[in-house]
């Protein structure tokens, strides 16, 4: 139970008054111990901000409302000193750019040891050093003895990312938050890193919150998915089901627009228009401007997430009309596109 993460009504706003940027508007999510949750969305959707808000990484000038509990303990009201104890020890974060996340002047080992000693996981430098080597080994680094003494610039991108993951899991966190951990890497290395995440989860009962824009990664990982757009969750549910039968026009459009080999030639299907910039406000549903199923009602009130199946929710009343016979799909987006994904 101590690793049960529950987020309710999370709202993150940068700045105040006229210049306020509402990056996250009322997000609910819940991760069981050992569970996996993928926050899926494009740039500007608010997914990274959500992850950072959970860790309270933002400072003055940012307002966070809502509730975030870890194992029942409310995080939003914790004094900063106590929050600092949690960061890196009970909640670990793997940032997007491994090069940027490492101090360029210090060795990997030194940075690992620091986390271990600050959070008092070990009590001596010797123990810290031994554990550092162990951790590097656990994340799949071939020659941990050499890497522990190496500086970041001596390592390849993939190795740096593994080192960063090692730092994130050093204190055996209950929750691991990974913010687009594969974006800065080559495709071949990406697959290996995702495999590493799966392995790490299997071996401990750590839960994983993965933030990504890559549908393939979501599919690879399994678990729950939350599709974010303009600071809101538009659809949630088990990944396999959502990808097979998306219940929101945005998700449908997203999946339909993925190019895949084996499909007959033709135009790439795209969602017309552009996604809103971080915090761009519109009344009504944020997707209304681009939605092929839009009705007048859509521009007035942002739709709430409603149950559309077991463990599934979507925020679109048009697709999920009260008579739940067959949810509407749009000509132009085909639900069948998701089958091509699994090919």
């Amino acid at each position, binding site marked *: 139970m101590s690793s049960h993460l529950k987020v309710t009504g999370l709202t993150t706003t940068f700045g105040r008054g006229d210049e306020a940027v509402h990056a996250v508007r009322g997000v609910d999510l819940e991760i069981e111990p050992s569970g996996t949750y993928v926050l899926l969305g494009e740039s500007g959707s608010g997914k990274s901000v959500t992850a950072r808000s959970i860790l309270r990484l933002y400072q003055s000038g940012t307002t966070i409302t809502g509730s975030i509990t870890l194992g029942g303990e409310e995080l939003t009201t914790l004094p900063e000193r106590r929050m600092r104890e949690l*960061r890196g020890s009970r909640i670990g974060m793997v940032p997007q750019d491994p090069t*940027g*996340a*490492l101090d*360029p002047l210090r060795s990997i080992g030194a940075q690992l040891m620091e986390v271990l000693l600050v959070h008092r996981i070990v009590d001596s430098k010797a123990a810290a050093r031994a554990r550092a080597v162990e951790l590097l080994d656990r994340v799949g680094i071939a020659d941990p003895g050499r890497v522990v003494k190496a500086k970041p*610039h001596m390592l390849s991108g993939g190795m740096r990312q593994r080192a960063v993951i090692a730092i994130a899991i050093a204190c055996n966190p209950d929750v691991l938050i990974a913010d687009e951990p594969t974006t800065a890497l080559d495709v071949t290395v990406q697959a290996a890193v995702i495999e590493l995440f799966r392995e790490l989860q299997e071996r401990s009962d750590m839960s994983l919150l993965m933030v990504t824009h890559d549908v393939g990664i979501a599919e690879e990982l399994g678990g729950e998915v939350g599709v974010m757009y303009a600071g809101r969750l538009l659809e949630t549910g088990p990944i396999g089901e959502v990808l097979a039968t998306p219940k929101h026009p945005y998700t449908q459009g997203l999946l339909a627009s993925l190019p895949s080999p084996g499909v007959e030639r033709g135009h790439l299907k795209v969602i017309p228009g552009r996604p809103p910039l971080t915090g761009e406000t519109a009344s009504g549903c944020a997707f209304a401007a681009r939605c092929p199923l839009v009705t007048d009602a859509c521009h007035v009130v942002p739709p709430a997430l409603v149950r559309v199946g077991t463990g599934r929710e979507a925020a679109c009343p048009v697709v999920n009309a009260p008579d739940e016979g067959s949810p509407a799909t749009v000509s132009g987006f085909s639900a069948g596109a998701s089958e091509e994904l699994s090919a």
Partner: protein
Amino acid sequence: MTRFLARRLLYAVPVLLGVSIIVFLTVKIIPGDPVATLAGINSTDAQKAALRHSLGLDKNIVVQFWTWLTHALEGNLGTSIAQHRPTAGLVMSAFGNTLILAAYAMILAVVLGMLLGGVAALKPRSIIGRVCSAISSISVSAPQYSVALLFIIFISLGTGAFPVSGMHGTGGGGVGDLLWHGFLPALTSALVPAGMIGRVFRASLLDALGMDFVEALRARGLSTNRILFHAVHNTLPSLLTMAGLQVGYLLGGVVFVETIFSWPGLGELLFNSISSRDLPVIQAGVLVSAAAFVLVNIVVDSAHALIDSRVRNT
């Protein structure tokens, strides 16, 4: 790291050679014939030729240079025209005093600079932050002779808190006396370097604090103080580079500061030698200062490479 050091030392040799060539040539560019001046108006050609020969001035210039250089390496830097003593001894003892002053000034400069730059970086919008920023900007333009005079007139003569001149009080004095006498001269020399170091420190600290890894450090649960410590660590390379440059400034500036404060160092020696056109001393002084500067740069570079292993391959 040892390879880095070896490379630097090896490279210093041609540089020092070049330096000695230039110093040697500065005497050769003097208009007029030195032999004619030394021999006198009424000397015959034969007397001039004999004098020329005894001074070795009839040999070709490369040989002359070589002789001069080998003598210099043996410690023979000629004889002072004004004082009729071996130049080497004069220069070296004076240089020792200058080193003391330069070291004192460097310490003051680094401490003051980091203070000014640090406050300006961490509290940019507060009054004290702006004041520190302004002080850094202004002190960069401060001519040493102007500041020296200001200090003497307003502090020494005005308040009597510090002595007007000299390196020691009467009766020898110890380290405390030395520090007391040296404070104003060192501070005078330190103002421009402090301003430069302050500006660089402020810029690098802001840079370091803006880097991605700072957020990563926060995500690891490190305290603000630790993060600041690591940020400052990351500013050390650029600080070192700037400090190295300032050593050259300090070594040059002593001419003014020592003269005005009557500090018996190389600067004062050079000043007096200029008035008496004592060229052997001027040559020797410039040579020793340049050689010292080259060595200091090697030390600074090495420290830089020690801290930041990325530069070890350059």
